[in-house]
């Protein structure tokens, strides 16, 4: 090094160069080596449902999540390394990532500054770039060296030897050519910083929670010709809306409601487009437009999967059905269903695995109507309910995870859909009641026949001077007519919802109380009708002035 340094700057520069050279040799902290973890050798995916009480999954909005655990082999050189994991699900919740099997971890990072046209320009502000301008007539591309001066407000200004110009405001085809991607990556990357005194080869397990998954149980019931039993089958339907697939994965689903905390937002880069906004470009042929107000968008609050869902093409076009039966085990207070063989949970795919097949489950059908308070002039169709019990006597007796049920009957050779119902989580020995919707054949009409007010026993309670509270007994006589348009007898339940303190004092049919509510249980003859009369008494209070 025989420099003839003449300036102070030169000496400073040399010192800086010597410093950086020694830094590289002594391997001080702050200069980690980038190491890429190998592809996953073993993957496990456990899918959790969206917090809902029943119903199928919505492929356009997968609100559940999954725990992904994968094993990878890594070679880490001595010193400090930044170990990067590629191919993690894009719905990853970075704070949930757990990495085991490594030397002590200094820190875990997840970088969300993504490579996009806007990010590229933003990173290049103040740096030299090449401007390409194509002559539309000749096709000749002019290359100009310049510097991006600003990308503020969506517009881009650059400086060349000519002066300062705005990108794409001239009407000429212009663009930049960049020399590098400025260290930006296509997908958010997860990395850990580790330090080891000697080279190691480690088997590393990475676990994380990720959005963009969901599952539900889909029950299909086939009624016997006499409708006294059904054959019940069910599928576990799981879906992955992520851009990443998990080949040959151990796959589990978990039933039960888990507590999830909300309100944690992770930094998300949206990859905005460059608007190339210019100066006002109104022309003499423009007509004035009225001013209008625009609400600020809250895109920043949107989660990554939501953004992806909005930007991505329609997910999960493919449905894969497998013949394997899942195996159930207890996981704390939840139910875990394991797909016995490895399966591929592909990107944007929904998959069905057999959950159960139970034959000859005894069922009963009952029609039910709910009447509130003193109903008058109300006419409504009764709902059809399918009932059974989740126990061994009813050929069930296994946890039934929530989802959706479709009930079919056979009509000769054809299959007809009797009804559909949402299914909630049902534990052993619980009553099963599926509401198949209203049936026009069974109509309920309520008429208030009379109201008697017992003024003789009215009580007056003075509150403040001039104002008193008057209590009177009120008695309503109700007449309910239930008609059956079907050609067979039906079981019918009339359920009453009375105000606090009210009670049925007399009725012309037997009245029971079920789950705290008065109930008439009736048989309505085929093509016939039944009339029920009852009397409800309660106390009414009114403020009076004198």
């Amino acid at each position, binding site marked *: 090094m025989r420099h003839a340094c003449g300036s102070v700057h030169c000496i400073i520069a040399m010192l800086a160069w010597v410093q950086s050279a020694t830094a590289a040799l002594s391997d001080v*902290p702050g200069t980690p080596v980038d190491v890429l973890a190998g592809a996953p050798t073993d993957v496990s995916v456990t899918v959790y449902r969206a917090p809902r009480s029943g119903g199928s999954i919505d492929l356009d909005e997968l609100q559940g999540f999954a725990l992904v655990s994968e094993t990878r082999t890594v070679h880490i050189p001595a010193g400090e390394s930044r170990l990067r994991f590629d191919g993690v699900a894009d719905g990853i919740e970075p*704070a949930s990532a757990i990495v085991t099997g490594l030397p002590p971890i200094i820190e875990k990072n997840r970088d969300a500054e993504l490579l996009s046209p806007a990010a590229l320009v933003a990173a290049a502000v103040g740096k030299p770039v090449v401007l390409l301008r194509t002559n539309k007539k000749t096709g000749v591309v002019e290359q100009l060296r310049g510097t991006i001066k600003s990308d503020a407000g969506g517009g881009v200004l650059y400086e060349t030897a000519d002066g300062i110009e705005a990108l794409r405001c001239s009407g000429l085809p212009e663009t930049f050519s960049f020399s590098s991607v400025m260290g930006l990556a296509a997908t958010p990357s997860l990395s850990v910083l580790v330090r080891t005194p000697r080279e190691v080869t480690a088997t590393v397990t990475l676990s994380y929670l990720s959005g963009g998954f969901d599952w539900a149980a889909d029950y299909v019931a086939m009624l016997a010709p006499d409708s006294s039993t059904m054959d019940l089958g069910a599928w576990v339907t799981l879906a992955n809306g992520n851009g990443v697939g998990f080949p040959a994965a151990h796959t589990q689903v978990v039933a039960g409601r888990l507590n999830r905390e909300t309100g944690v937002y992770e930094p998300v880069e949206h990859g905005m487009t460059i608007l190339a906004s210019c100066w006002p470009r109104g022309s003499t042929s423009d007509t004035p437009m009225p001013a209008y107000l625009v609400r600020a968008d809250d895109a920043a609050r949107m989660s990554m999967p939501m953004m992806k869902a909005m930007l991505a093409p329609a997910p999960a076009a493919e449905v894969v059905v497998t013949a394997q039966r899942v195996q159930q085990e*207890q996981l704390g207070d939840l139910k875990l269903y394991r797909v016995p063989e490895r399966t591929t949970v592909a990107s944007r795919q929904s998959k069905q695995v057999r959950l159960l097949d139970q034959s000859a489950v005894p069922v009963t059908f009952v029609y039910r109507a709910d009447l509130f308070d003193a109903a008058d002039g109300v006419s409504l169709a009764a709902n059809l309910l399918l009932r059974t019990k989740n126990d061994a006597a009813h050929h069930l007796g296994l946890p039934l995870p929530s989802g959706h049920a479709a009930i079919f009957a056979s009509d000769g050779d054809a299959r007809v859909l009797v009804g559909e119902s949402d299914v909630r989580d049902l534990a052993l*020995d619980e009553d099963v009641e599926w509401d198949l919707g209203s049936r026009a054949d069974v109509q309920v009409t309520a008429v208030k026949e009379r109201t008697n007010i017992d003024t003789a026993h009215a009580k007056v309670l003075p509150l403040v001077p001039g104002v008193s509270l008057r209590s009177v007994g009120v008695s309503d006589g109700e007449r309910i007519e239930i008609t059956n348009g079907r050609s067979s007898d039906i079981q019918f339940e009339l359920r009453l919802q009375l105000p606090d303190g009210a009670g049925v004092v007399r009725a012309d049919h037997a009245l029971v109380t079920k789950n*705290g509510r008065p109930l008439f249980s009736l048989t309505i003859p085929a093509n016939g009708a039944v009339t029920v009369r009852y009397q409800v008494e309660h106390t009414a209070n009114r403020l009076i002035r004198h």
Partner: protein
Amino acid sequence: MGMRGNCLGLVCCLAACTMTFAPHAPAADRSLSVTIYNDDLALIQDRRDIEVTGGKQRIEFQDVSAQIRPETVSLAAADLSIVEQNFDFDLLTPAKLMEKAVGQDITIVRVNPATGAETREQARVLATNGGVVLKIGQRIEVLRDDGLPVRVIFDKVPDNLRARPTLSVTVDSRRSGTRPATLSYLTPGLGWRADYVALYDEANNKIDVQGWVTLTNTSGTTYADAQTLLVAGSPTQVDGAPAQMGFRAQRARPALQSAGTESGNREQLGDYYLYPLAERTTIANLQTKQVSFLDVRGVPAEHGYEFRNAWLGTADQAQSAKSVYSFSTSAHAGLGDQLPAGIVRFYLRDKRGAPQFIGESRIDHTPMGSTLSLATGDAFDVKVRSTVEKRTRLATFDWQTDMRYELSNALPRPVVVTVLQGGLWGDARISAESQKSVRRSADVAEWQVSVPANGKASLTATFVTRY
């Protein structure tokens, strides 16, 4: 000349690169210290060597947080007094540049669409209202009114237009020369919380807990090689979002069962606990960074069930009890640390030994020695159905409510469920009950109900209320 030429070339490059980032403050001598509070607030202390001449001059700091709160800036350096501080937020955009050019001359280059030939003219910008009106010679024209390509070339950028919001400080220096200066300011966009991983061992009723501090940077700026300190606590912020409005939002279920009174060996600053990161670190923009601060194994923990009926009402269906895990943060048989606010994620091993997620729960800042009781979710197999059996009016304002709670347990082992009845408003009295209750508070009564394996149990209570 050859060597010397190379050397000068290197100088130019290095000088240009560093100058672009910080014209008056070379990055090499920079030392950043970042103190991050919980509520989206950070104190940045940026120490760098500045080169100043004697007298009044302007120093620019371009690589400060993009969300800097300029009113909180202070600059400290020897023999330097501050004349004024400016925060320029008028950004350099094509529209602004054109607006500032009103009354001035620009160069326009017309491109002939047929031949590609260029014609250069000088033009004066008259107005930019809706469209750009130019005076070229004696003619008045609207820029690109005919849609044909026209390049506009500006000579220079006005002084106070910048690509990024820029802080400038005008100082009066008593002497010339390089000296260290510390620029400090508050900025939102940096925040942190804790994330806990709790692995529960069902067989031994023990829990392993790892704690991570998770800091996020959305401030728009990268803080390179920064000494980082995390402060557990929420200083009151006057402008911006108030940290705490004097009350804590009521949660359905309090996680803190008893508040601790122990002291640990964590560093403290006033009433706040400090969590310094052991090493300097680079906090990149849009980064989530986690650093371990707690790793405790084999702490005794309990698992139980809790059901809360919010008011004296009937539920249409049986409701699942909550699955609850409780443990201590005491130095004795506990985690032995203060826990900064964050989210605790619970894991349990499945039959094959693989940890599976079973739910999470948020905790507030928790003193050492506290007992935490965290609900992870609903128990699939343990349910309670609450029913109003009868509601009778005793007098105009007096009511009697007969409640029945049917508990069911589909697990092959007996469980004890804590049944809580809320909505008692202090005045409600229990006149009869099938087992003894404990009045947890004026509003809440509590029973411990045992439910046999694969069995049922019921609880009845009669409440006399006045309203």
